């Protein structure tokens, strides 16, 4: 119904930016065909900070990889501006959890410039945009430094700058702060929100931390344990870092944790 309409519809301003439409994802291990997610549907509007939240093994990272174009759904499709996504591309830049996502043979500036230069943006413009992005993540002092001399948090900032400088339609982040210590993680979350406030990008953020989801997200898609299905969508537009201690925040966190950890699926 919805689907048949979508195929013929021309992109309009009312369409969501990204539509994940009944997506079932499977991957092969040497002796099993594993279903990671089952008929997952959600939409992402321009300017959203959508968080995919779920227990480990629920396929949230797999969904993100499907949006990035690394994995083809066996059922359903993922659309960007109403066009079916067939492969990875620079319109959906991704920030990974691992620190080794930076190219060790390029300095910070070179790393941020690289995706732009290979996509035909002129050297001078790429440099200006890169410097601007590096400034926004507060690493201007480290422009001329190789990645191996940076701390984990700084590496992640460079990766964010590299993705942002490309001005992608969506910024995909796969548990980008999971490998950081708690203090750095909190600071990075604040910085990300600040950045969103300044630049206004669209973000899809994967995490397994309820607190992080509430702080970073404007909307949370809660996924059930393996195989992942959409359990709930929750709005948390106004919850920033300052709300951590409010009863409202705690109540919402409790509600989500009940969805994640109770055996019986919640109906509400």
């Amino acid at each position, binding site marked *: 119904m919805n689907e048949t309409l979508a195929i013929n519809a021309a992109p309009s301003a009312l369409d969501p930016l990204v539509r994940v439409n009944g997506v079932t994802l499977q991957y092969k291990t040497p002796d099993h065909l594993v279903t990671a997610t089952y008929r997952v549907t959600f939409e992402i509007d321009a300017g959203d900070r959508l968080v995919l939240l779920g227990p480990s093994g629920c396929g949230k990272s797999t969904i993100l990889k499907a949006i990035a174009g690394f994995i083809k759904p066996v059922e359903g499709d993922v659309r960007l501006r109403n066009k079916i996504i067939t492969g*990875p591309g*620079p319109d959906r830049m991704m920030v*990974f959890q*691992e620190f080794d996502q930076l*190219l060790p043979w390029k300095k910070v500036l070179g790393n941020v410039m690289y*995706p732009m230069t*290979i996509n035909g943006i002129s050297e001078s413009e790429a440099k200006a945009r890169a410097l601007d992005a590096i400034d926004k993540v507060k690493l201007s002092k480290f422009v001329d430094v*190789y*990645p191996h001399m940076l701390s984990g948090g700084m590496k992640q900032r460079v990766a964010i700058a590299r993705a942002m400088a490309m001005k992608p339609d969506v910024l995909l982040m796969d548990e980008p702060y999971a490998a950081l210590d708690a203090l750095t993680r909190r600071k990075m979350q604040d910085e990300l929100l600040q950045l969103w406030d300044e630049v206004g990008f669209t973000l899809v953020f994967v995490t397994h931390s309820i607190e992080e989801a509430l702080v970073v997200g404007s909307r949370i898609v809660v996924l059930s344990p393996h195989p992942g299905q959409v359990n709930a969508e929750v709005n948390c537009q106004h919850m920033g870092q300052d709300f951590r201690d409010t009863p409202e925040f705690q109540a919402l966190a409790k509600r989500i944790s009940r969805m994640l950890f109770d055996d019986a699926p919640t109906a509400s």
Partner: protein
Amino acid sequence: MTDLSHRFAPSPRPEFERKVTAPAELGDVAKPLSMVERIVNISAVRRGVILVFIALFWEVYARWLNNPLSFPTFLDTLEALRDGIASGIIPQRLMITLQTLVAGYFIGLVIAAILTSVAVTTRIGTDLLATLTAMFNPLPAIALLPLALLWFGLGRPSLIFVIIHSVLWAVALNMHSGFLAVSDTLRMAGRTFGLRGLRLVIGILIPAAFPAILSGLKIGWAFAWRTLIAAELVFGVSSGQGGLGWYIFENRNTLDTAAVFAGLLTVMTVGLLIEAVIFRFIEARTVRRWGMQRG
């Protein structure tokens, strides 16, 4: 909640909060190392000292042995080396050897690069590379020399053929394992930038696998150098022009042992120079600077 004031818990210590000294008042936080420490930290100095000791030991032992026909002294060898260089024979022989070597080495590298590229992009290519390296890598290059002579005749092409054989498999094996070791994250990052196929290989895989590629190049170089000197010793002169191996062989025939030593010394020195100067330079400019290899 459980009661945490357990009977095994120690009695609480007094709490406190105090001001710390500002770092500026602590004086030098980073002190420069002393001159001696810095000199000892230079590996060239440490290795140089070892070389001096070896030369000293050689000189003393040869004088004590007093048999210049089988073991000339260090100074005699140096003299023979100086004469050889002054007369222009050693440089000329060295040039011939190096020319052959460089030709064989680079042809070997190109073939290795092509083979590895096919191997990383297709599964049948991987099998091809694995089978060929398993077959040919254990085969000493020198063992192919009689065959090469039969096919290419007495001359430079035969030498180049055996050099290619000695370089190719070692380099291809290293390159391939280097490509396989590139992390998925880096590959995926490259693909989100919009790179694929050959551009992904050049833009991401080659630099990311560079430590392994470089060690392949070094191993290949050492193999080629050894193989060539040995091949020259075995059948020496090629169309009237012998290389360093021939120089060594010639002087042994005339029982000019000091000159034999001088030839061997040249072989070692050139090998050392290329390792210590050219490869070190490449290493310092690439993998060390990128933090992919410590040192």
